[in-house]
């Protein structure tokens, strides 16, 4: 980028920055798909601060990294810096699209951490550090997050190879026509070739546990005859009402939580690396396994991103089918989540089983249309894979018009006014909505804090602008509201379903061009939807080949965990379980 200084003025104005920051903008990139501004590494904090304070970009949605070693595209032909950090910012007050910023870093360099401007960068920067090895200056807790300390290398780098590595890109040549498949059982590299990072010794290693050092624990000098001492307790892996294999590292004083930090990665399978080996289409069934309660919305989000990148049209009927499936899955998710919030509160099983009764009916419908109850793999680039089977529409209409409203009302009657639920939920886990936004929290959590921000309205995708529905909000930002907001949202989903099932036209369900040989044009794209758990985004970069160059999942479950610590401090251990439950995470999506 030799003529960077020459073009500097124009992009800075596009970005809405005044002259004093003009030199921070080095240029723009990927004009054809989604333009991004390239920012000088040492000025990134100034730019972020200015955008947040003066332009209202208060929500750091996506922060990730791309490794361009060996990149085949034309766009980056004479740029040496190997890694590129990507920021996607949104405005929750205005809605609308994002501003994308890129910062180029040479290998093994350090860049300033965005956590001082957007505390929500915390987990995402740790992930980038873990998987790419970029260090962030000023990060409060820069430790590995998905992998353990004894892991050698940074697995998302292009030159890192997994165990049983075969080839960079599928399809692997060995499978046809010679069929010389080698069983992994026969390769078994473990125990022979385990490597550790340089200078790291497995015998002397101790995991860092003291999140709040003992020295910082509160002093007791009120002369109480029974003095207590704060201790570190691991809640998990497992139990915390078993939302999955997850651990909360806490420092507790008696029953009270002084500090809490989420520890994860037990289900990490390097989904994104697999995604870069896969062809575009192969990733579709893999997205099912992210938030496995909502494969339909995962499918949709990924399909939307690729359609945006490759410019694929979706026929009318398919748009309706997508909305129908996504709203059904939202009801599934929310009733599930309600049931499990109650479970976490100690109302074991009865509310949960009543809440997920209708889920069975919906899953039966999913199975009839797609062939699987949970791993639906139903959407394709340019539509959905199959039209509805006979009789499906009638059953869905019966559910949407009669059974679901009745069931939700019954659930409402059973729980909402329950005094125990109120006593346990009111005021617990409070965090102001401003804090939630700055922590990059999205979805029902912020709507339960009073902010009517829903991507279906703020930046409509698909055909959501055609439906008449409200975004419910509640004012208190506590456990109780987080429970109740899901009830209200499920009821809105029923409204959307009724309209969609009524208005759905006949016609095509799959446009052309989206087959297994798809080559997306060079460029990059970030696209997001309002998934039941929050903002689910896919960041894709293509160098024009049949595989994505970069495939990143911005998963709501993972990023919402930013708020777990701040929300839990000061409450009891038993409350922390519910606070986690009310974030509504799925570990398939947290760990990826």
């Amino acid at each position, binding site marked *: 980028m030799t003529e960077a200084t020459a073009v500097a003025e124009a992009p800075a104005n596009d970005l809405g920055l005044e002259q004093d920051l003009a030199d921070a903008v080095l240029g723009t990139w990927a004009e054809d798909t989604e333009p991004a501004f390239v920012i000088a590494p040492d000025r990134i904090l100034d730019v972020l601060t200015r955008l947040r304070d003066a332009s209202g970009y208060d929500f750091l949605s996506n922060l990730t990294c791309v490794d361009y070693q060996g990149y085949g595209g034309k766009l980056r032909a004479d740029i040496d810096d190997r890694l590129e950090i990507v920021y996607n910012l949104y405005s929750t007050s205005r809605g609308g699209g994002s501003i994308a910023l890129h910062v180029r870093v040479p290998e093994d360099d350090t860049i300033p951490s965005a956590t001082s401007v957007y505390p929500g960068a915390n987990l995402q920067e740790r992930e980038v550090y873990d998987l790419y090895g970029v260090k962030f200056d000023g990060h409060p807790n820069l430790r590995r997050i998905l992998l353990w300390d004894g892991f050698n290398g940074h697995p998302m780098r292009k030159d890192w190879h997994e165990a049983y590595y075969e080839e960079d890109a*599928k*399809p*692997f040549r*060995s*499978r*046809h*026509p*010679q*069929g*010389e*498949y080698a*069983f992994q*059982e026969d390769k078994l590299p473990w125990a022979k070739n385990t490597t550790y990072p340089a200078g790291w010794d497995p015998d002397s290693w101790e995991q860092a546990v003291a999140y709040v050092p003992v020295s910082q624990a509160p002093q007791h000098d009120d002369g109480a005859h029974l003095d207590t001492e704060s201790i570190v307790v691991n809640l998990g892996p497992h139990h915390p009402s078993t939302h999955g294999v997850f651990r909360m590292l806490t420092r507790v004083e008696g029953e009270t939580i002084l500090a809490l930090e989420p520890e994860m990665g037990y289900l990490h399978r390097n989904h994104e690396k697999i995604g870069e080996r*896969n*062809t575009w*289409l*192969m*990733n*579709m*069934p*893999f997205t099912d396994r992210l938030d496995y309660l909502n494969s339909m919305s995962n499918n949709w989000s990924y399909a939307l991103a690729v359609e945006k990148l490759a410019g694929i049209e979706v026929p009318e009927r398919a748009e309706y089918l997508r909305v129908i499936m996504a709203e059904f899955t939202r009801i599934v998710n929310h009733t599930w989540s309600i049931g499990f919030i109650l479970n976490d509160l100690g109302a074991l099983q*009865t509310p949960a089983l*009543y809440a997920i*009764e209708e889920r*069975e*009916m919906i899953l*039966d419908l999913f*199975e*009839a*249309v*797609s*062939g*699987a109850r949970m*791993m639906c*793999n139903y959407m394709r680039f340019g539509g959905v*894979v*199959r039209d509805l*089977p*006979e009789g499906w529409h009638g*059953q869905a209409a*019966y*559910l949407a018009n009669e*059974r679901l409203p009745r069931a939700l009302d*019954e659930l409402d*009657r*059973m*729980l*909402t*006014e*329950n*005094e*125990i*639920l*109120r006593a346990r939920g009111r005021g617990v886990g409070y965090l102001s909505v401003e804090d939630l936004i700055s922590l990059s929290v999205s979805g029902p959590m912020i709507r339960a804090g009073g902010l009517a921000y829903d991507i279906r309205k703020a930046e409509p995708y698909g055909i959501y602008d055609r439906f008449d529905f409200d975004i419910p909000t509640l004012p208190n930002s506590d456990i109780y509201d987080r429970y109740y907001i899901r009830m209200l949202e499920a009821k809105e989903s029923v409204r959307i379903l009724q309209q969609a099932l009524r208005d759905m036209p006949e016609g095509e369900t799959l446009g052309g061009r989206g*087959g*297994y040989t798809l080559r997306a044009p060079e460029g990059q794209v970030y696209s997001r939807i309002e998934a039941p758990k929050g903002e689910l985004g896919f960041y894709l970069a293509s160098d024009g080949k049949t595989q994505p160059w970069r495939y990143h999942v911005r998963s709501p479950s993972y990023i919402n965990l930013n708020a777990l610590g701040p929300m839990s401090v000061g409450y009891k251990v038993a409350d922390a379980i519910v606070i986690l439950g009310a974030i509504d995470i799925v570990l398939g999506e947290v760990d990826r």
Partner: protein
Amino acid sequence: MFGTGLLKGLGVTLKHALDTFEDDRESVPDRYKGSLELGNNRRIIQQPIDQEGLLTIQYPEEKRLLPERFRYIPMLIWDSEKHEDRCTACGICAKVCPPQCIWIVRDSDENGKPVTRCSEFYIDAAVCMSCSFCVEFCPFDAIKMNHDYELAVYDRNPQLVYDMEELTVPLEYYAALWPTQYEEEQARRKEEEEQKRKQEEEKAAKAAARAAAKSAAAADESATAAKPKRSAAELQALAKERAAQRQAQAADGGSSDDDAATAKRARMEELKRKAQERARQRKLDAGE
């Protein structure tokens, strides 16, 4: 008033309890209405969407009725009408498979020239993610999704690595599992074949006309012609017939007292039985 919310909630629970109790006291509880009795307490159950509550299905005696599109592990189709495997070893399924769990060895003739037939075809069912891409993209309708989900074995390798024999099912089995799709497919295939036949007939007619003209010319030249040559169409038909015979023999297992052949026949019988059962379930589903 404090407690009203609790009481209301308990009311809901009580109603559920009473409903269930009522139902269980009946001699034929709701969940067995319209179910398919297989005898010996075994049943296929489907809960109608307008039935309140939720059924508990006493697996393994009772099972759910699976929808037609249910996908589990792929199977290969043996075309029982033509006595041949439909698979042509084109390899598309192996290319689109996301976890790359299909591998195929293409067969070759005596001269080492590749032919459109596979000598080996494997699917590692432990790796297969039941995505059904192989089915979607196979251009020859040769691979379809099986509904058989009771696959538990003690060892992943080799028991879950299915070879061609384990994967192959007769066309009727597929037709019973996927009746709607099968009908559509058959209609489409018939049409395509019809077209192909027409084209070939035209070609053959032309070739015959040419040959006739030639032989007429030849006859003119010399009256001492050898025995008449077969036309191209005739030769083709003969070759087909032979191939069919060969394959029919292969299907029968060649020599009759072969253990493998017996096992294969038993498997085919079992599949036929399953197909019949499924056909009965379908009837139930259609409300007959």
